[in-house]
């Protein structure tokens, strides 16, 4: 809030996303003050999207009322799994029984809901995952995100894997799960619009679209990232340090980087390619000042021949197989 009030003047925005530390854990009174500050400094346009992350066990009627009263119109629910074993593996404190009540509470006031799911959890089978997908589909959320589990260095799961207490699922199995997500969800009216994101018609997450078009965005709070006026900034990741900086009246930014035009174009290419929309040559040129074909030279040839990307002359996008090796493709195309 203090970081917000350091802004010199209110900045109208089209989308707001509160995530990371799960704001629904905040006591309603504090949450209210946070939302008020946001409403004051970042007024949302009339058709704007105001999205908040929540975990199933933290959702109370009171919290939802506070959210809805302050303009929040989308909730992204961190369900992760409908199976107890997987939730335990993931160190989640909620159980499968929390999901449906939480969803009902949200829906009472907020119509637009997304469910987050994780696949590739140790001991999870393809059948387990398919069941998770079915469960999610049956609840008919407007949006579903499916993330392959990543072991972030230093997290408890990462430590358990290092110690050999758990084993990552084999690459092949994880791949099958990923392909199953694409198939199941697209057969049930969820359109894939990015590597890990699926939405019903017109229900794509607005904020995601900003990220993946590589457009500008603000960010506040611990570890928050922002991309304003061509400059990427990152707040410090340590909460105590963050509080101290803010209390001392210092900036919370620890990393700041202004990319030159060409690097920034490469980055845009890398990020936009993750979308099903892919790269629109014309828009790309307008947006970055660089022609797609000039940046990638002859590198797409082999990718086209191997059917990892598709090119209709105007748009270039990943194929189904291409999604599975998106990082390698993006790295090769954008960076050589």
């Amino acid at each position, binding site marked *: 809030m203090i970081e917000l009030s350091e802004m010199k003047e209110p900045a109208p925005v089209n989308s707001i996303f509160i995530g990371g530390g799960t704001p629904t854990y905040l006591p309603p009174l504090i949450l209210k003050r946070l939302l008020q500050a946001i409403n004051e400094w970042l007024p949302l346009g009339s058709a704007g999207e105001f999205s908040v992350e929540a975990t199933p066990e933290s959702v109370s009627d009171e919290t939802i009322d506070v959210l809805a009263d302050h303009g929040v119109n989308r909730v992204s629910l961190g369900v992760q799994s409908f199976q107890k074993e997987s939730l335990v593996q993931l160190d989640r404190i909620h159980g499968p029984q929390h999901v449906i009540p939480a969803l009902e509470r949200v829906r009472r006031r907020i119509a637009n809901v997304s469910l987050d799911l994780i696949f590739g959890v140790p001991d999870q089978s393809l059948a387990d995952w398919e069941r998770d997908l079915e469960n999610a589909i049956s609840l008919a959320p407007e949006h579903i995100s499916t*993330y*392959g*589990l*990543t072991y972030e260095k230093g997290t408890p799961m990462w430590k358990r894997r290092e110690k050999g207490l758990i084993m990552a699922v084999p*690459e*092949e199995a*994880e*791949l099958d799960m*990923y392909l199953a997500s694409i198939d199941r969800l697209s057969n049930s009216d969820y359109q894939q619009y990015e*590597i*890990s994101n699926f939405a019903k018609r017109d229900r794509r997450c607005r904020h*995601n679209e900003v*990220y*993946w078009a*590589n457009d500008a*965005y603000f*960010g506040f709070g611990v*570890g*928050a*990232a*922002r*991309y304003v006026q061509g400059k*990427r900034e*990152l707040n410090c990741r340590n909460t105590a340090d963050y509080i101290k900086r803010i209390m001392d009246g210092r900036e919370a930014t620890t*990393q700041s*980087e202004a990319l030159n035009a060409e*690097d920034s174009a*490469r*980055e845009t290419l*890398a*990020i936009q390619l*993750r979308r099903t929309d892919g790269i629109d040559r014309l828009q790309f040129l307008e947006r970055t000042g660089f022609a797609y074909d000039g940046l990638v030279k002859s590198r797409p040839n*082999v*990718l086209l021949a*191997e059917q*990892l990307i598709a090119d209709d002359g105007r748009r270039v996008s990943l194929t189904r197989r291409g*999604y*599975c*090796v*998106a*990082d*390698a*493709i*993006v*790295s*090769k195309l*954008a*960076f*050589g």
Partner: protein
Amino acid sequence: MPAPSLIRNFSIIAHIDHGKSTLADQFLLQTGTITRRDFRDQLLDDMDLERERGITIQMHPVTIYHKHTDGQTYELNLIDTPGHVDFSYEVSRSLAACEGAILLVDAFQGVQAQTVANAFLALENNLAIVPVLNKIDIATARPDAVMAEMETALGIKPEQCLRASGKTGLGVPDVLGAIIERIPAPPGDPIAPLKALIYNCHFDTYKGVVVYIRVMEGSVKLGSKIKLMRGNQEFSVIEIGQFRPGMVPCQELTTGQVGYFTAQIKIIQDVHIGDTVTDLVNPATTPLPGYKEPQPMVYSGLFPTDNEDFEDLREALGKLRLNDSSFTFIPEVSDGLGFGFRCGFLGMLHREIIGQRLERDCDLDLVHTAPNVTYQILKTDGTVIVVNSPADVPDGGQVDEFREPIVRISFLVPSKHIGDIMSLAAERRGEYIRTEYLSPERAIIVYDLPLADMIFDMYDKLKSFTHGYGTMDYELKEFRPADLVRLDVLVHHNRVDALSVIVHRSQADRRGRSLIAKLRKEIGRHMFEVALQAAIGSRVIARETIAAKKKDVTAKCYGGDITRKRKLWAKQAAGKKRMKQVGQVEIPQEAFLAVLQSDD
């Protein structure tokens, strides 16, 4: 300017690590050429690589002054030489500038292969030898036994041997005295027309070529008009001086002296090692005999990873060759690697050092292809061609006879390892010649065997068999017919000529399989399946596939992730710069070396 009678010129020669550079340190310290304050161990080893590896790689001349017991001050021009067999051309070049040599022998290790080889080199050059037992300070020194070995192997009488320690300085004054008394003063007529031997060079960005000379007759002064006899180029001397050990200018170098001159020589091709410098106005009639160029033992390709660096590489090779004329280079084109050079080296260490000097000093990224020896091929049309690269082997139908180089190799080992050496040599198609005993404990075993079976790893094998106590020396003997074939490697159905090797037919299958297996490990997974094949002509003898990368995708890519990812990708792209793109496949440098190691 000293009279020739007050000059002594000598090299320090020995087996590797017997303490040449450390003894040179003592000479510098005890004659006051260098102060304690400016001193560091093996001071003459001034190249970075020499210091890192603790070995001498090139010769280092230095001039010192010593007051002898006769009351006279003598000018001593010493040249410290490398001991490793790959750098023996440095020793030859140094010896030609001297009248004597200190032959150092480690008082514990005793006579080793390069002790013998270098002693014979000095004798061939008619040099006076001053034998010195070094490292006499160490507790395990066995001077009497070592002197007996010297007598058996080299005919050096024990009473001729001096004892010294380069470490403590013990006995060093006696060695200085013996140099003056036993080594003849330089001959030559100081008023004859100038004749100076070019024994070394290096390139200086500001001064041009710095030419290292030994004046044989006459003298050369600052401003002298001179001529290089081989190409008849004329120059005037801009700077002349001595190594003390840094370059210290003087007015003149006269008969018997060793030093350098510069003349703003920018075209490096103008200067040849072994050429004679003479006076332009009053020239000598005949040049000095110069040097016989050494015969490279191994060849391999050097390719810039970035083809745009080709011209830079050519220039760097040229400059390096000024300083080390024992390697050769000629342009070569490879289908896979583009433009590069086929280079000849005296051995594997030489090859490695040249590669590193180029990469470091000249900041070039290079791909080194697997080394091979020289072959001769008698073609069906009756002509004989010399092949330094597997790519030059004509197709099977045109080859009448394939001939490979044979070396005569002398192993000097503790007697108890004779059996091991014999089985090692037999494994490598060796032909036994003879055994000589230096003492009941140590013997010299002589074999003839194919250079190709010796050059790549025989030295390492010998060292490990004998726990470091065995040494070896070799010389090229002849070419002999053998049943050889060219083994090709196809990556994704493209033949990569830089991965071809020449092997004995009986070993082809095994080599082919292990080579492909090694490559499989070195080449990373691609986004498509990569086929690897080994073939002789059109017959495929081994194959493997590298499965396609199936999954490589970051699930989440939001705010902070984007920066992290971009950095990672940029880093990957930089890593790929060190790879060679062959067709659609990225082949890392290491893969080209896999060919080398594929026999373990």
